[in-house]
């Protein structure tokens, strides 16, 4: 590992699996109990080190996650007591206020208020930068090592370590609270949480590195959906990720170049993920409280329904984009709506809409223009637009795709 975060744990696949699944929950509980993020992280790491020594000889305990949390809690409280001897108050160490629980009180986690929910709202507090929000969420909830988070975002390990230390210091110094926001704050506070999970997913799409950030984002979205069953946008985000994920295998050609939706091999789409995503979309439709994530999920559900690109219900997609544009009036949404309109009314109508958009720095804008110009027989202009798009594309796969004039290599 060479990381210091998780010594030798990954040598044992079973413990590694449990670590990935349980460490977020244990860290979240420990932060509530001891009121300090670093102490909580250390204690959970120590508990896994103990597990590595004990479990191979004694076998797995009946509830490994619970065992880790209890062991970590005992270790952390021991350490607090030892340190508190020199000081007067145990409570002095507890700096994160959860508002309803004194630190040091061992209490089992109820089903109503999972500590992971407090943790994600603290990690994604709007007083922290988006970069810090993403890093903290992956580190504390996802159980990724600092090195893994660094690699996922193409920065060096020391840079990422500094970013994490700074963010944790701000949480402590500015006293960012450790609690789930009240009903009236929730709309504002949920937005960055959903944005972080979505960002983790899209980062996974463009950097298909180890660890798999797409899988991590879906895991986080599942946790959120289970913990906040009454938030339609949380369900919408999960559905959107599942439906996008169903096409991931067919998104890239064997040589790594991009394959557009219309040219993908639809037999390779993951039907189990599609079924799960579409079921959530149907539940959202019945609830009828649409938001941007639910609408994007619904658009993807329509695509997933079509056995071939020709059979796509484009008028349904245009209607959904109309709705999406009303709730999220951004030029990017307008661009995607124009593409859908192009499928219904033809490329001239779409191009007229596209030309009105101020998206000069967004490479899909130029790629879309290029495609529409090509379909209108304006090949010279199309070639120029493809060059502009290729020059701005972030990945080699997309650059190659655009240089070939928007066609997959065969």
């Amino acid at each position, binding site marked *: 590992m060479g990381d210091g975060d998780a010594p030798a744990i990954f040598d044992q696949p079973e413990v590694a699996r449990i670590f990935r699944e349980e460490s977020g929950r244990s860290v979240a509980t420990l932060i509530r109990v001891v009121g300090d993020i670093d102490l909580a992280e250390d204690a959970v790491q120590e508990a896994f080190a103990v597990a590595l020594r004990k479990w191979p000889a004694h076998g797995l305990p009946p509830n490994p996650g619970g065992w880790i949390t209890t062991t970590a809690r005992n270790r952390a409280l021991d350490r607090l007591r030892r340190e508190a001897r020199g000081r007067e108050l145990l409570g002095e160490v507890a700096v994160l*206020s959860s*508002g309803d629980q004194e630190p040091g009180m061992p209490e089992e986690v109820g089903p109503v208020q999972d500590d992971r929910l407090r943790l994600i709202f603290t990690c994604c507090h709007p*007083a922290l930068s988006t970069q810090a929000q993403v890093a903290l969420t992956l580190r504390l909830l996802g159980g990724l090592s600092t090195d893994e988070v660094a690699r996922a975002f193409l920065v060096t390990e020391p840079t990422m370590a500094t970013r994490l230390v700074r963010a944790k210091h701000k949480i402590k*110094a*500015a*006293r*960012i*609270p450790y609690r789930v*926001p009240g009903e009236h704050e929730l709309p504002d506070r949920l937005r960055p949480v959903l944005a972080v999970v979505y960002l983790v997913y899209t980062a996974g799409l463009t950097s298909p590195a180890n660890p798999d950030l797409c899988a991590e984002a879906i895991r986080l979205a599942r946790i959120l959906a289970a913990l906040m069953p009454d938030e339609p946008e949380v369900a919408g985000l999960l559905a959107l990720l599942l439906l996008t994920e169903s096409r991931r295998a067919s998104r890239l050609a064997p040589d790594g170049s991009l394959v557009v939706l219309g040219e993908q091999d639809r037999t390779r789409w993951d039907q189990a993920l599609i079924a799960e995503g579409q079921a959530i979309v149907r539940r959202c439709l019945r609830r009828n409280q649409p938001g941007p994530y639910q609408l994007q999920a619904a658009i993807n559900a329509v695509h997933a329904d079509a056995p071939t690109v020709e059979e796509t219900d484009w008028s349904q997609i245009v209607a959904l984009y109309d709705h999406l544009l009303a709730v999220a009036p951004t030029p990017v949404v307008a661009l995607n709506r124009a593409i859908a309109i192009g499928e219904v009314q033809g490329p001239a109508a779409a191009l007229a809409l596209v030309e009105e958009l101020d998206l000069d720095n967004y490479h899909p804008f130029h790629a879309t223009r290029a495609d529409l110009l090509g379909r209108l027989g304006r090949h010279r202009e199309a070639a120029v637009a493809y060059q502009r798009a290729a020059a701005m594309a972030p990945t080699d796969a997309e650059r190659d795709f655009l240089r070939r004039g928007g066609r997959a290599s065969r």
Partner: protein
Amino acid sequence: MTQYLLSVHSVDGEVGNPMTEEEMQQSWKQIQLLNQELKSAGAWVFSGRLHDPDTATVVRISDGEVVTTDGPFVEAREHLGGFYIIQAEDLDAALVWASKATAAVGKPIEVWPFAATEA
């Protein structure tokens, strides 16, 4: 309880929309109301508006001698226009006061935690 500095950021020569007499009265009234609210909630520690940066003086030690010069220390377009010191349970509580303060003074507010605040 943590103490926070809520600093009011003013921009030099901001001539965009000079306040009318009536707007100034209105703003003044809102600031008074906010001070009362802070005090009755037990959150108020101190607050005050500052004169222009031209009125500031800088004192420093140079080669063991006290040197006094015309201020401000940092020549910047933005300067400290005034500040509140409040105490609050956590950052969220401080941010609620900050949003009331920015609405009253019509300028951005920076929220800073104080380092040692436990009395």
